[in-house]
């Protein structure tokens, strides 16, 4: 299983702040699994759900390393962090 860590704001939206476990072999399929469970997050992650292009304020990290290729392979036990732009001070 892959553990997905969401930004606090997205956790608020789905009332769930713990990591979300999904079964996936790539980042894209992990995000698709996430959005199947929580479709209300769709517009916060994709610019356009059809093209599946990430919003320009979202960064992805697998095991703490930045990843930009959504087709990058995942291994069981990997941690996928979504970190979105913030400006709060």
């Amino acid at each position, binding site marked *: 299983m892959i553990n997905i*860590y969401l*930004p*606090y*704001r997205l*956790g*608020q939206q789905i009332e769930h*702040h*713990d990591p979300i476990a999904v079964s996936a072999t790539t980042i894209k399929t992990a995000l698709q699994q996430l959005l199947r469970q929580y479709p209300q997050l769709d517009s916060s992650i994709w610019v356009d759900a059809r093209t599946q292009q990430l*919003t*320009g*304020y979202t*960064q992805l*990290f697998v095991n*703490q*390393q*930045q990843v930009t290729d959504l087709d990058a392979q995942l291994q069981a036990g990997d941690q996928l*962090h979504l*970190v*979105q*732009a*913030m*400006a*709060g*001070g």
Partner: protein
Amino acid sequence: MTASLSTLEIARLTRQIDLPEIGLAGQQQLKNATVAISRVGGVGGTVAAALARAGIGHLIIVHGGKVDAQYLNRWQLATAADQDQVTVDVFGKHLRQINPTMQITSYHENISPARAPILLASADVIVDGAPLFEERYAINAAAIAQRTPLVSGAMYGHEGYVTTIIAGQTPCLACLYPHKPDYWVDHQVFPVLGACPGMIGSLMAMEVIKLIVGFGQLLTRRLWHMNLLTYDMNLLTVERNRHCTVCATVEEIP
């Protein structure tokens, strides 16, 4: 201009001068340094207070408006008695109480693309604690253009991050986040409990001191990220975007 540390300053700072990473030479570097802080609220005010205590020689503070009641849950440099007063006057008053020998230059305005290169020009290090992306992108562009290190920290709710941006060495803000979130329409969109920006600001102050004195590991090419609700803490590696509209043309510095 170099001013020597006075006997009174050495007495006040002796416990940090005891640190081998600082010592008298490092303390003198801090006294000789100029740090510009854009927005001096929950994050930036924490940085300013910590740097004043640490003996920074010159702070440039940039912040418009007046002190409003809703800011008092997190602003280190304002109290209930300061409501409706001009922000930078209040910050200056409290900063001088912490460190009476520190030079303070105040600009009672919020930063803009036109003014950022002027207001930040003389800084050795820039600190970004602005609550609007428009200001953050303006600060980022100025820091890259003038090749000044930028310590950037931000938060939302119980989450936050800090990174250090150096032109040619690290990703800039526009590399990491080329677009701002649609929902971030004003400075009131983020819920906040004072401890969170306090923690972000404290870490940023440490980063500024390390940059100036030159010790320890920096948050260059790394994004320190935390969620205080879950205590999930991460040191994330970040990379330059070769298509970045702000820094792609800056030559890579190994």
